[in-house]
């Protein structure tokens, strides 16, 4: 036995088998593939399709609520049903759609492709994550089938309303377990993706050559690891209270309801950035590709992402200003500070567009929609971060408008990503006309729905009320808002039609239809199992561009 062996010779060209040929066994297809696959792309698609379904379902709930509110003193649905709708609408939108659609859907599909890996670090664990997530979604929906209906206490379920004495029945339990399952799914995804990014990067893909999207997912996943276990613990406490005679949130026996609020928001505010950061990444990639330029201020962008992640852990109590039980100046200062890195990102996005050659197609338009809506949500966020103004506006429709501008901004980002990577995922090109129609409908519908709600909040309309008195000056604005919500619904329908129709009959897209820059565009569309047959040399954060435009490399210096 020799200590040193000769380096094995690479097999000669004609005997070089494709990776596909080496992996033995039959290849499942269709439903079996969907159920059993450990391929990160299939699982990513599972998340994206399930997430989109959740978006449509929770959107229909929103239409029900807007129909109830279209006129005062309406009895379209009962108070009981209305409360179930807004609870499950919020829960599904946040826990099943917005978060997992970004970090698990796009994250699963794109992270291995972008860093040149064949799959995730733990493919079967990845499969488990998806099934826990789908189980969580199903349980949340199953609440509607129980005799007392689904949970009725709002998506942040303030104790003691959630205690068994105030909310009896299985609806609340299904809500608890459903969210806990999506939480575990998130934690497992986080472990998986962090490991993947740290250990499976291709040769040459150093950390500072990873696409911004991958950086954002990395920070998101750390936030998940910090935030979700706290939520799960809080849920365990509530479960003990509901079923095992505990008194964590029962003042009569020495419990503290305010504890729930602290635990929940300690999760809840990082959650906002868990939702947001992946879409920031998506928009960054779309803008760079569609402007045919490198991301402006790449390293500043990463620093901004890291500081958003850090600051987001210290702002939870800005949801609790009106409890009279938190230190106002500290949380106000931290909340205001978050505006700074977010502002840096905005200017970097503008810098990316500056002096570029901007292709005005559907993914770019949705990215611009994201920029404008999110800007609006950010500005009203700076207003709400100030305790004195929050005392006035807390829990009014001003807050509803604020966070819908934020989250619908992110939805625009998500749709930008869906259109942008659609050719990669399906191998087919979407229909530009349907895409643009969807964008225009969504832009009009969304702003018509939520802009009047700022004014409703200033006029004193509280959120989560099932109906309202006719004499308070809220009637016309509510009418506008409801009409807007129907237009938004049409916009979503247009996108769904586009996605389904193009999947069946869209033109073949080719490997790199956008002349894009990052590694996922180096493999075929859709990519084969285990992704890459060969990798281009990775010498910057945009290896595909470098390979295609050797004369147009990033200009060094400034």
């Amino acid at each position, binding site marked *: 036995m020799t200590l040193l062996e000769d380096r094995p010779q690479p097999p000669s060209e004609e005997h070089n088998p494709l990776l596909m040929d080496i992996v033995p066994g039959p290849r499942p297809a269709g439903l079996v593939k969907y159920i059993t696959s450990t391929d990160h792309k299939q699982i990513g698609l599972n998340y994206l399709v399930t997430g989109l379904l959740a978006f449509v379902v929770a959107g229909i709930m929103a239409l029900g609520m807007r129909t109830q509110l279209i006129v005062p*003193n309406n009895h379209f649905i009962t*108070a009981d049903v209305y*409360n179930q709708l807004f609870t499950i609408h919020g829960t599904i939108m946040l826990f099943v759609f917005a978060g997992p659609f970004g970090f698990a859907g796009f994250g699963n599909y794109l992270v291995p492709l972008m860093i040149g890996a064949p799959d995730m670090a733990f493919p079967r664990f990845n499969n488990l994550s998806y099934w826990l997530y789908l189980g969580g979604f199903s349980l949340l929906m199953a609440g509607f089938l129980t005799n007392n209906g689904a949970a009725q206490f709002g998506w942040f379920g*303030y*104790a*003691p*309303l959630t205690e068994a004495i105030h909310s009896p029945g299985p609806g609340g339990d299904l809500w608890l377990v459903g969210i806990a399952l999506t939480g575990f799914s998130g934690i497992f995804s986080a472990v998986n993706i962090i490991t993947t990014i740290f250990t499976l990067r291709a040769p040459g893909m150093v950390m500072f050559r990873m696409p911004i999207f991958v950086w954002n997912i990395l920070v998101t996943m750390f936030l998940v690891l910090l935030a979700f276990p706290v939520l799960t613990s809080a849920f365990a406490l509530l479960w003990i209270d509901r079923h095992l005679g505990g008194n964590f949130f029962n003042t009569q026996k020495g419990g503290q*309801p305010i504890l729930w609020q602290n635990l929940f928001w300690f999760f809840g505010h990082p959650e906002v950035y868990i939702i947001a950061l992946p879409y920031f990444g998506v928009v960054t990639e779309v803008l760079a590709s569609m*402007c*045919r*330029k*490198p*991301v402006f*201020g790449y*390293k500043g962008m990463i620093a901004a992402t890291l500081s958003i992640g850090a600051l987001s852990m210290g702002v939870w109590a800005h949801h609790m200003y*009106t*409890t*009279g039980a938190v230190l106002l100046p500290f949380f*106000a200062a931290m909340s205001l500070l978050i*505006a*700074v890195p977010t*502002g*840096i990102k905005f*200017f970097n996005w*503008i810098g990316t*567009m*500056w*002096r*570029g*050659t*901007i292709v*005005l197609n559907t993914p770019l338009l949705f990215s611009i929609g994201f920029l404008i809506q999110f*800007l*609006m949500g950010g*500005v009203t966020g700076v*207003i709400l971060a*100030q305790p004195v*103004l929050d*005392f*006035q506006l*807390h*829990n009014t429709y001003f807050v509803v408008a604020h966070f819908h501008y934020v989250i619908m901004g992110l939805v625009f980002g998500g749709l930008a990503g869906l259109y942008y990577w659609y050719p990669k995922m399906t191998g087919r090109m979407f229909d530009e006309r349907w895409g643009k129609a969807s964008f225009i409908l969504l832009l009009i519908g969304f702003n018509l729905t939520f802009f009047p709600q*700022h*004014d409703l909040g*200033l*006029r*004193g309309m*509280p*959120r*989560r009320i099932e*109906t309202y*008195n*006719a*004499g308070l000056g809220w009637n016309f604005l509510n009418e506008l808002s409801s009409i807007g919500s129907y237009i938004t619904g049409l916009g979503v329908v247009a996108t769904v039609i586009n996605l389904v129709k193009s999947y069946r009959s869209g033109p073949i897209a080719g490997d790199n239809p956008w002349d894009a820059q990052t590694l996922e565009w180096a493999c075929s569309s859709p990519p084969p199992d285990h992704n890459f047959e060969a990798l281009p040399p990775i010498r910057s954060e945009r290896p595909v561009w470098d390979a295609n435009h050797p004369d*147009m*490399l*990033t*200009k060094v*210096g*400034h």
Partner: protein
Amino acid sequence: MHLASSLLGSVSNFGSPQGVTKQDGWNHLLWNISFWFALPITLLVVCLIGYALFRYRERPGKERVPAQFQYHIPIEAAYTIIPLVVVAVIFGFMFNAENQQSKSPAPAAGNVLKITVDGFQWGWRFVYPNGHAEVGTADYTNINTNSDLPVLYLPANEPVQLHLVSLDVVHTFYVKDFLYNRDLIPGVDNNVNFTVKTPGIYQGQCNNICGEYHAYMRFLVQVMPADQYNQWYANQPACSVTTAGISGPPAPGTCDSQLSKGFQAGL
């Protein structure tokens, strides 16, 4: 000149409603400061985006691949430091306003009127220092009726302290015209101070989801000049209960608990 100043006056509040308490001037100040910063910044960003979209859009004759620059340190430093300064300034104003607003009435005003506000599913009880209680819940079938609502009677231009107590779940005391929200949380002791300037009737409402009929958990605030208020108060026997506008003697045993709650707040 006159026209300009009146125009400025009409937009200077940027839509924030006029409040009726002595404390709400701080809201206007902060609201205006926020807008003076936010409007130009928003306009700047929107214009930059719009300009870039128009000026650099792909069109015939434009080079297909533009210059590939990536960093510009001075500009990046500028848009890091300037926002830091802006939020520091906003924070300074906010910090001052918040301190001023939360100041309790001076101790000289020893006769602050202390009222206990009890929130329950789904109504309110306002307990006065002599044990008189105003109670009410709403008509759950028709939200347009105001006749059953409980009424909180307050004197104008007198400092008032409200002791907020929840009898079951979390509620929020919210009167739009006070520009103020404060939660009623079991286990948290909340006192808030107001001095209402303008007599009138104001709408109040619970502003935290508290169960099925949350939307109906409304009340009215009637603010009267001090002499009228004193006259009203003198006519309320100790420990009497007015339910939905109808006065009656207290049910046996209730006065003690009301009194203890009332005195807990009042003394």
